[in-house]
């Protein structure tokens, strides 16, 4: 009786020896950011684990736009929201239609389109950024939210189509046949059978596209430049341009900016883990 329990304690200790460093490694940059956000300016650099006078004043300054760097905070926040939601909705519409077409309607050349989409997915987005920037210039879309929305749709839809196609390949063909026998048109089939059945994957993909667009820095900073048009991450990057940038406000803004995606991620974790990670890499 005694020996296995000793061994168990040893095992547990070994696991803790891994777990604690992992926890510290994971949380340090985030906690550091949080610490700055709740510290008054003079406390922020003390190197203490908890500020002597924790305060929410930084949040107040950000929300009331009481600093030169933050004078357009709400507009930028709103820009981020609009761009993320538009990119999500547009990706969802385009990708669902394409996946339905390839997987259910077996459109001629569908396999080919799928491969093209996959090819785009594997081209690193940073490599496409330079030509994309010039292209948007040629289309006259620079400094227009549509440029970023369309760029995000371009980047998000290949993976979206692929995941949705994988998921819809699993739906039985008999379903379509039965609906068609009952006189359903193709559009009815799409609207009344396909979309409801695909809901979990659609939620996952919509979330994926929204997070992708919300988190995007490189394209946003290339394609948008006016202070009232940029998104939050670009505004955060602009803080760095000045030598005397107020770190505690930058970290507070960063914290506010990081909250929605983290919340969305945890709210939809069930869908994300099931819908995305399983599809991300097929062995």
């Amino acid at each position, binding site marked *: 009786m005694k020996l296995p329990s000793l061994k168990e304690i040893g095992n547990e200790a070994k696991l803790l020896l891994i777990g604690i460093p992992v926890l510290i490694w*994971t949380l340090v940059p985030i906690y*550091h950011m949080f610490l700055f956000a709740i510290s008054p300016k003079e406390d922020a650099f003390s190197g203490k684990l908890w500020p002597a006078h924790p305060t929410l004043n930084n949040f107040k300054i950000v929300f009331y736009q009481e600093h030169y760097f933050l004078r357009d905070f709400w507009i930028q926040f709103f820009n981020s929201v609009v761009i993320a939601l538009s990119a999500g909705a547009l990706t969802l519409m385009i990708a669902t239609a394409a996946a339905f077409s390839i997987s259910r309607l077996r*459109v001629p050349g569908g396999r080919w389109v799928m*491969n093209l989409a*996959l090819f785009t997915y*594997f081209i690193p987005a*940073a490599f496409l950024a330079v030509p994309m920037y010039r292209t948007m210039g040629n289309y006259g879309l620079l400094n227009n939210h549509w440029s970023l929305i369309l760029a995000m749709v371009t980047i998000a839809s290949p993976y979206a189509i692929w995941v949705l196609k994988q998921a819809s390949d699993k739906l039985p063909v008999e379903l379509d046949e039965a609906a068609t026998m009952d006189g359903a048109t193709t559009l009815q089939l799409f609207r009344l059978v396909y979309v409801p059945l695909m809901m979990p994957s659609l939620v996952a993909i919509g979330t994926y596209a929204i997070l992708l667009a919300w988190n995007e820095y490189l394209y946003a900073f290339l394609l948008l430049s006016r202070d009232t048009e940029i998104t939050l991450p670009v505004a955060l990057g602009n803080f760095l341009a000045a030598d005397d940038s107020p770190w505690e406000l930058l970290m507070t803004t960063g914290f506010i900016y990081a909250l929605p995606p983290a919340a969305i991620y945890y709210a939809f974790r069930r869908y994300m883990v099931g819908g995305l990670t399983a599809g991300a890499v097929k062995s």
Partner: protein
Amino acid sequence: MAITLSGDHAIPSPPLSARLTTPQVWGIVMIAPYLLVFLAFVVYPVGYGLWLARHPASYVALYHDPIFARAAVNTLIFLLVGINLKMAIALFLSGFFAQQRSWIKWLSVLFILPWAVPSIPTILSVRFMLNPEWGVINQLIFKFTAEDGPNWLNDPSVALAMAIGVHIWKSLPFWTLILMTGRLAISHDLYEAAEVDGASWSQKFRYITWPSMQTLYITCTLLSMIWTLGDFNSVYLLTGGGPADLTHVLATLGIRYLRLDQLSLAMASIVCALPFVLPLVYFMMKRLSR
């Protein structure tokens, strides 16, 4: 939107639809929006970019630019060290997180945070931690040793190492999660049988875990290679390519040339990376389009 618009012309065109069934016509209509996006925002930019990069002179200029050579070497180091370290740790941690303990479940929920939060604020947070004067790390070093800490980001090799660290911090949770699903798919009976036969920990790994994870591990490594090549944020937001443009990687170099208004150089530097990227892309496509 696109569906109703194109629906009108789908009906009154008998010559085309004579050979196609109605669902197939709908199929074409429904795939058209993506094809439009693809043509306008992938085919055209890529073609235009290649056209901009057509002059041999750009490649000569790149060849003579020491920053390009440095960036190529940096990219290689970033890939070799970053990916192997990351995947090895992920493989190790996937075993840790596959343990059935409630506190490990909770830890795994927190562990995913770096992946779930956007990279800009966290990278800037690390950047501040490393600040030589005010950063918390050097403050602590001063507190305990009464000596000034190093100027972290001012030394190119340390700065690059830090960028690799940030990259690993950000993407480790994702790969750990993927490898963990691979691990959980291995039948538990195998381990029990091995246990009965008195197999050691390393033997179990060598004869059970690794053989069944091998393919997944290699696929992940290759995919991670492509994505790491495109990791702009880790380097750009931490070091900005500095000091003295010595920590650029290919992903940030293109943007640097763009900002210097050397568009053909920007494109040429990307074209130079294609011989390495395209085989990887081809391989991944073969894997995933099965």
